[in-house]
Each structure stands twice: as structure tokens, then as C-alpha cells.
């Protein structure tokens, strides 16, 4: 079961905090929706830092990050 996080419109570091909390509680994969390049970079950097693989999909002017372990 994929965990889905909608972090669109949230200021940093909330997308990172929500993703990190999902990582601590649940099993992969995690899907994170963000709408700024900054949030995309921050979530991706934090995920790689904790040993997760990151796949990024660009949807119009939003991004979907799929995180797997």
C-alpha cells in the first residue's frame, strides 16, 4: 500500500517533516506531491540522506516523488 503525501502549497520544511514522519512510521513506497523546485530538492536530498531511492516525475508545474527503500 503506497503512502501518499500531498505537500503542495506547504512552506518548507513541512514537506520534509511530513515525509520524514511517514518514513519513520510506515513501509515504502511513499509518494510525495510538491509544487516548488525547492520542496522537490529538499525532500529528495533528505530521502537520499536516509538511504531511500528517489524517482521524480514532473506533472505540469508540480512534481511527484516516489521514494523506495
Amino acid at each position, binding site marked *: 500500500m503506497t503512502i501518499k503525501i500531498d505537500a*503542495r*502549497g*506547504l*512552506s*518548507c*520544511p*513541512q514537506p*520534509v*517533516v511530513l515525509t*520524514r*514522519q511517514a518514513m519513520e512510521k510506515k513501509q515504502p513506497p511513499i509518494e510525495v506531491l510538491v*509544487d*516548488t*523546485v*525547492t520542496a522537490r*530538492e*529538499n525532500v529528495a*536530498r*533528505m530521502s537520499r*540522506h536516509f538511504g531511500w531511492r528517489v524517482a521524480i516525475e514532473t506533472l505540469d*508545474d508540480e512534481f511527484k516523488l516516489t521514494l523506495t527503500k
Partner: protein
Amino acid sequence: MSERLTRFFASRLGIVLVGAVIGILGPLLQFLGNPKNMGICVACFERDIAGALGLHRAAVVQYIRPEIIGFVLGSLVAALVFREFKARAGSAPIVRFVLGVFAMFGALVFLGCPWRANFRLAGGDLNAIPGLLGLAAGIAIGVYFLRNGYSLGRSTKTYPIVGYIFPALMVGLLLLAVFQPVFAEGGPIFQSESGPGSQFAPLAISLSIGLLIGFLAQRTRFCTMGAIRDVILIRDTHLVSGLGALLVAAFVTNLALGQFNPGYAAQPIAHSNLLWNILGMLLAGLAYALAGGCPGRQLFLAGEGDSDSAVFVLGMITGAAFAHNFGLAARPDALVDGVLTVGGISPAGMVAVVLGLAVCLVIGFGMREKLA
């Protein structure tokens, strides 16, 4: 090409290089005329702008600082070039305004934003150390709230014109700075004849350096609050490596330019009142953490279309006006004929800091989303 540049700026090397560039340019601006240990200070410079407009009448701190204008417009250019400009609005603007007001109260009790705290330390002002400790403590309290579901709520995408309003205000300020119109006898526009407001690098240089820093900081997301926050929150040292580079580069540049004078007492535009250096920055740090960025970062976000950050900046400018009109800002140490008068803050300033902390705690506890 654009994607490769974006990756470079997002890399560790990118943030370190940009931190170092800012660290060199700050002391250089001081060398070229800006006030001592104040090559760049976002809070002080916004306060000077408030003074130039006559929002407060502290005669020694009135000047339209081109660096601030450059920060916003440089960020705007970067965001447009790299297609990241995105007008957004609606994430608790009035809360951000209030946080901006109290952030400025805290900053003016310490006498500087986090950028200046680092420039002060790099110039030998050891009072910056308790200030930075207070800043870190304030950010740590903010991290506690973030971990417990604190949220300003979502912003939504809106009409591009909404995102252009704040940059347009900066263009207006630039026109006032260039043409220096006088609206009434004696001003506004006000211009200090003595004190920090009368000390400035040539306008074209200040503006150019501001534009460059705005561009680079938009690309790298340079943020002094985020630097400390990310270390506490997720043990991420990315942003703090940029801040470290700033401090080291500023220290070396100050040594090279003969601007390093270590000590506590009678440091330029600073006071040596330990407690209020800590508490002022603690309030400011908490307010920056709750608002999601240091004063510099808020300007860069405002440049890339974030109108909520623009509201925070307007809160800071308003806060500066109140701080000086109501005598809340700290008085610097003074050394006159060999006699040292230790500065500090008024009872009203103390009340303002305590009130600010209380308001921040109410916001931190009151704006929590239930976590899944």
C-alpha cells in the same frame, strides 16, 4: 544547461561557494562605505528603509538601502530565467505579518539579523556569540513546534500579478533612491546626516552586489535560519555548510581589509548586555522558524512570487517603525572620551520581547494540524 546549473547550485559545492561569495561581499561593502560590521544586515537595512520613508523618525538610521532592492529583484531575475517564478498566496498572511513585526523587535534588541550576527562575529564582535546561541535556541523551539504538526497552512497558486507586486514596490523604492524627491520640507525622503544611515557604499555598487546575491541565493535557497533548523530537525548539514563558508570568508576578508577588531565592549553598533543579546535573538529565531525563513530568505522568496513572504517583510518594516517610535530598539554601547557607556534596552523593549515570545508560543501551539 539550465538543469545542470540547477544541480550545481543545489550541490554542497554550490551552497559553499555562494556562502563564501556573500562572506566576501559583506565586508567589502563595509570597506566601500557601509556601517561597521554591517556590510549586509537585512533587518537593519529594512529599518533604514522604514526611516527613509518617514515611518520612524530616528534620524541616524534613514536610508533607502539598495541591497534590499537588489536581493528581491536578483531573485526575481533568477526565478524568471530558470522558470521557477510562481505567484502564490494565502498561507496565513496576517500571522506572517505579526511574526515579521516581532522578528524585527527581536532583531533590533540584539542589533542585527542572523546575517549580521555572523558578520559581527567575523569582525571580532564577541557579543555575536550569545546572540547566535539565542538564535539557535529560538530555532530549536520552532523545531519543537514543527515536529508537533505546526503549519501555516497551504498557499495556493494565484495570478502572476500578485507575485509581481512586491518586486514592483522595490522598483518604486529604487526610483525614490535614484531621484531622491523631497515630498515635504525636510523630507521624506529622509536621509541620515550622521550615524549608520549616513554610511553607505555607492548606490550602483550596493545595488549590483544585492542583485548578484539575490540571484545566487534564489538558486541555492541560502537561508541562515534553515541552516540551523535543518541540523536540529533532520541532522542535515547542507545549508549550514553555506553559512559556515560565509563566516570563514567574512573573517578572512576582514583580516585582509584590516576590519577585524576582537572584543566585547564598545563594538560598532552593538551592545554588550549579555541577557538581552540572547533573548532578542531567541525571539527573532523563533519568529523566523515559525515563518519558514530568515529575513534574507523571505526577500528571496518574495522575489520568486511568494506573496506571503512579502507580507512577512512588510511586517518587519512595520516592526522597525514601531521599534524606533516606541523606543524598543537597543541603544548601542558608546565610548566617549574614554568613558564607556554600556547600551541595552528600555523597559518597554523588555516588555516587547516577552510579549513577542508569548505571541510566538500562542501561534506555535495554536496552529497545529492533527498528524496522521
